[in-house]
């Protein structure tokens, strides 16, 4: 994850408290694992401001069910539905399941 974004998110966590924040991601499957790990356990590449910093933020992908359910259906249909095919929703969901299981 971009180092400047890491720094901003760290600052926001300090300002609002991690318990008052959630993160919603839009990346394809490839970058997802690193992004989730960075925002929960800390930057695995040890390169950024979140190196060794466990923010423990709840992290979601915009296409997964909990977030889908928040979005009005006509807007989801217009802006996101197609991306379920492009980004392989099944793979995203299974990757997230795996990551959450290893975190708990």
């Amino acid at each position, binding site marked *: 994850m971009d180092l400047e974004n890491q720094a901003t998110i760290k600052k926001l966590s300090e300002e609002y408290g991690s318990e008052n924040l959630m993160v919603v991601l839009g990346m394809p499957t*490839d970058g997802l694992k690193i992004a989730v790990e960075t925002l929960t356990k800390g930057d695995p590449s040890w390169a950024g401001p979140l190196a060794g910093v466990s923010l423990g933020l709840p992290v979601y992908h915009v296409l997964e069910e909990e977030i889908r359910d928040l979005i009005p259906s006509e807007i989801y249909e*217009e802006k996101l539905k*197609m991306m379920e*095919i*492009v980004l392989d929703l099944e793979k995203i969901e299974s990757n997230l399941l795996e990551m959450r299981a290893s975190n708990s």
Partner: protein
Amino acid sequence: MSNESKAYIHSATNILVHVPELVRYGSKCHREVEDSGESFLHALNKNLRSFKEVVSYPPNQAFIGNLNPDKLDKKSKPWFKNLLEGSSKEGVFGEILDQTTFYMLLKSADDFELFLLDSDFINSNNNYSPSAKKIFNEKFLNKGSKISAIEENIQLKGSLSIENKGELVGCFQSDHEKDESLDARILLENLSAKASGAFALNRMLVQDSIDPLSVEYIISCSEEAIGDRYNRGGGNLAKAIGEMVGCKNASGMDVKAFCAAPVYALIHAASLIQSKVVKNVVVVGGGSLAKLGMKAHFHMEKKMPVLEDLLGGVAFFLSSDGTAGTPYINLEIVGHHPIGSSSSPQEMIDSLVYKPLDKANLSVFDIDKFCVELHNPEITVPAGAGDVPLVNYKTIAALGVMKEKLTKEGIQDFILDKGMPGFSPTQGHIPAGVPYLGYAIKALKEGSFKRAMVVAKGSLFLGRMTRSADGVSVVVQV
């Protein structure tokens, strides 16, 4: 539309410049060296490729016209471990240049003596690429420096060390103490874009026997901001490139549109021709030094060589001369992404692909090949950046499914037929669909293709002036 009012595309050239010892000055590597010191530089130097490896690398052979991208996925992977023995640095429509020659080009591009180059280095090398040697500037090359003067310059002025095969051969200096826009690194980026762009242009002129004096107009689509502190992005690298190549009768300007610039440039070039402002236009794009080694950290972590060690360059020649059977830029099928459109991939691809084709009473099946952003996935996937061409093709296909023009089961075949694997270095604007044009022009002339669609996107949000993305497309056909 009469023949006279078409803008025919005659030539396409793709060049690569291997600059392993300039990777350290790419934006990301430069910051890593500043933060981690010599240890990162040492690691970087241990993971650089040789010129022979670069020439034999399958995607690079595809880039210069020697291996149709359709055949690339049949080559054993990983490509960096399965090099093509016996490959040539000369391509059907391009060339791969070595670092030594590039340093000579950089010096030849240097009107302001920013680049001090060792006289012994200048005089001891030979066997240069003819296309490069033709634009050497003997007057500038006669102004070589002693190594002692170079060392002193580095020590006193903090100039950038320039090495070749591990030895100091030069330095690159700032041109103003107080002007950040004229800092050594910025000027090195700009001069590299100029020199690589000039090489691409000259290679094309030589390749297709086009007299430089016949060129009327040049459009550069390079991404560097050419200017000083009062005009940071003033531009017109086009004229600097044209001057270096001897296009004395040409004028020109730059198109600035992030990575979508080459396609905008083609559209504007065609518009100038079709409206009879000029009879011919060259579109040229120089390489992006800032992007060298952007993912070096990821490549080294995965025990891969640093694959972002190449500057890319492209050049295209368009004119009003042509007949039936000559490919032309069809200005009646242009896709724009309006400001009011959202950046959602769905709406972007609808604007760029489906709407312009619908307007022309065509479907996606009337396009033989979609030339999308063609970043080499072997470079991007290890860094978590995904397979960019594949995502683009899936998006075109997926929207087709939503519009009931194809089935979900048909997506794979659609991509195989109308798509291709990425093969371009990650040089920003260079991969933006246009690297395939050399192949498209050939197929269109031979009659195996009727139409190719070039689709490019730009990340405007990176400049912090808008959160929007951008895109543009055009059809090339016979």
